[in-house]
């Protein structure tokens, strides 16, 4: 269990200078020569203090944006789906684009907490808690869309197979939307459970250092009586491993199922077998971009520079570069297969994406998802926080457009030319999209305020990685 040192120099935030590589030593995950006590107080004191002005500012902005979204959704539910720009030909556009986008975002959290855990990547401990929180909030954002996109959202519960007085009449288990419903609810449940299991020891830590009062009682309630018993820790480790082992195929299955919404259809541009791997890679790609966006803000605002170090940023940039490459490969493969299939409808669908009336969306997608990640080949870019932040935002935009391109442009030009149409978003479409970001950031800010942002117990476990036994980095 030795981390391989890459031989690259590391930026020491506390010293404010670059340190040359020290061959033979593991690269420290946490900087600043922290003791266990320091870790506890660094993380927990955030929750004891009054919220900062910047937190309040961010929270109010998010809340306002959320209100815009709530108004949009309320108006839409009361008036009808017609307040979106959809039509007979284009039955889905912003709604399902947002859904796939947010689900994709969510996948990075599971990836960090589960897959990197299975791969024994120690650096994950600093970011896994917030990444998992991001997953849950992203899935909440995503989960709203399948419900509100229906014409009669108040009947959305009909998607559940429950006993009834209609015969009984069940659901159609052949429909990818039912698969979706199961996949998302299962994914949400497992992610939430995973997250909560990770939080239990930290609640105990909080409980034990908080003075008696309502907060202590809440922490006590949530810590389930955790006392740090090693017998429990022993089982806990096993459970964590099992959950990681379950979540890994789950996350792949969820985005595979989401891609099947399209892949199992007959519409040219949707009906393609490449979609599952393409979607999973895209999800990781977009998810990491969102994790980066969030973490760069969080480490600054919550003063977590010593926990989320340039090493972390570097690692995530590398993953983005890798998954960006996969996405680019998928785009190329898609074009090639469309050409090589000899299917004229398929061929036209792809030519139309690149050259048709909505070509601009395609080229935004290509620029943001294929060209932008190439900057991460450069060490200087990866080390520049501002540049990484900007690039991560471009990737977020690009990945939203990827889904928009797939969903919308394919529908506008399908089989029967007389049915061809277009799509123009309405104000309500835009309000709902923006509002989903408001919801996401509102939830995330609340999380930052009331729960430990970093997994205390896990960080303590890797605290001494990259240090000599006597301490000192």
């Amino acid at each position, binding site marked *: 269990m030795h981390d391989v040192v890459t031989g690259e120099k590391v930026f020491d935030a506390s010293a404010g200078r670059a340190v040359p590589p020290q061959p033979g030593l593991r690269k420290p995950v946490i900087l600043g020569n922290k*003791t266990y*006590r320091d870790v*506890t107080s660094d993380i927990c004191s955030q929750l004891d203090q009054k919220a900062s002005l910047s937190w309040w500012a961010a929270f109010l902005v998010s809340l306002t944006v959320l209100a815009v979204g709530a108004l949009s959704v309320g108006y839409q539910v009361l008036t009808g789906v017609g307040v979106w720009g959809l039509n007979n030909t284009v039955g889905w556009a912003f709604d399902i684009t947002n859904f796939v986008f947010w689900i994709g975002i969510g996948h990075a959290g599971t990836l960090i907490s589960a897959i990197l855990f299975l791969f024994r990547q120690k650096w994950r401990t600093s970011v896994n808690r917030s990444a998992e929180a991001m997953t849950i909030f992203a899935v909440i954002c995503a989960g709203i869309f399948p419900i509100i996109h229906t014409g009669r959202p108040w009947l959305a519960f009909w998607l559940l*197979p429950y006993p009834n007085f209609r*015969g*009984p009449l*069940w*659901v*159609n*288990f*052949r429909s*990818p939307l*039912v*698969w979706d419903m*199961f*996949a998302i609810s*299962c994914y949400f*449940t*497992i992610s939430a*459970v*995973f997250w909560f*299991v990770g939080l239990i*020891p930290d609640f*105990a*830590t909080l409980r*034990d*250092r908080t003075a008696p009062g309502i907060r202590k009682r809440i922490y*006590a*309630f*949530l*810590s*389930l*009586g*955790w*006392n*740090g*018993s*090693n*017998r*429990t*820790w*022993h*089982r*806990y*480790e*096993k*459970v964590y491993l*099992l*959950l990681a082992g*379950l*979540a890994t*195929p*789950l996350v792949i299955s969820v985005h595979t*199922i989401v891609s*099947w919404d399209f892949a199992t259809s007959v519409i040219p541009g949707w009906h393609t077998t490449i979609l599952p791997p393409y979607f999973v890679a895209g999800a990781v790609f977009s998810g990491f971009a969102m994790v980066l966006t969030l973490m760069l803000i969080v480490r600054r605002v919550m003063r977590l520079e010593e926990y989320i170090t340039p090493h972390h940023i570097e690692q995530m940039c590398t993953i983005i570069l890798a998954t960006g490459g996969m996405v680019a490969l998928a785009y190329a493969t898609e074009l090639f297969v469309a050409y090589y299939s000899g299917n004229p409808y398929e061929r036209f669908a792809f030519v139309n994406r690149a050259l048709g009336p909505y070509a601009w969306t395609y080229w935004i997608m290509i620029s943001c998802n294929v060209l932008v990640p190439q900057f991460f080949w450069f060490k200087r870019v990866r080390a520049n926080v501002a540049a990484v932040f900007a690039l991560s935002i471009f990737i977020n935009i690009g990945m939203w457009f990827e889904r928009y391109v797939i969903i919308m442009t394919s529908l506008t030009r399908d089989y029967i030319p007389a049915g061809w149409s277009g799509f123009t978003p309405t104000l309500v479409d835009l309000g709902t999209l923006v509002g989903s970001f408001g919801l996401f950031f509102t939830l995330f800010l609340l999380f930052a305020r009331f729960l430990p942002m970093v997994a*205390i*117990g*896990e960080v*303590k*476990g890797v605290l001494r990685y990259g240090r000599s036994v006597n301490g000192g980095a």
Partner: protein
Amino acid sequence: MSRRILVNVFGSEEDIVGAAARAREGGYTILDAYTPFAVHGLDVAMGIRPTRLAYVCLAFGLTGAIAKLGFQIWTSAWDWPVNVGGKPLVSIPAFVPVTFEVMVLFAGVGTVLAFLLRSRLFPGAAPKATYFRATDDQFVLVLEERDASFDVRNVEALFRPFKLLHLEEQIVRE
């Protein structure tokens, strides 16, 4: 019934792992250890048997998968057979995704529930033994004083190579 226990407090993970190994070699009964994080090797040092939660996980997963597959077949082909898109009533490939999801759901939730029950963790439970810095920065090893031959001084000597911060005898009632 009451028991006498000896509480040994250490400051680092190496110390408690070493001490635990030494105590077990010395024939002492280790009741438990309390640590701020999962200390690797401590379970081996304490001699804890491997947990069987993996089997629970398997059992739950299989139950979920079989139940869900059965339910899908029953609803689609037996209870009310409906021709949907010309597909067969039992369309096994189409039933796979939901079966898989429910399998994971059952396995995941079942395992965690089993873990919580087994470890007697539930909302609002009071911790059985609280060494409050054990959730912060201290590592606590608890030995049972089973008979009169138990001598604290022997233990102290035994733990001399390790940085013992604190040692205390307690009587707990059960």
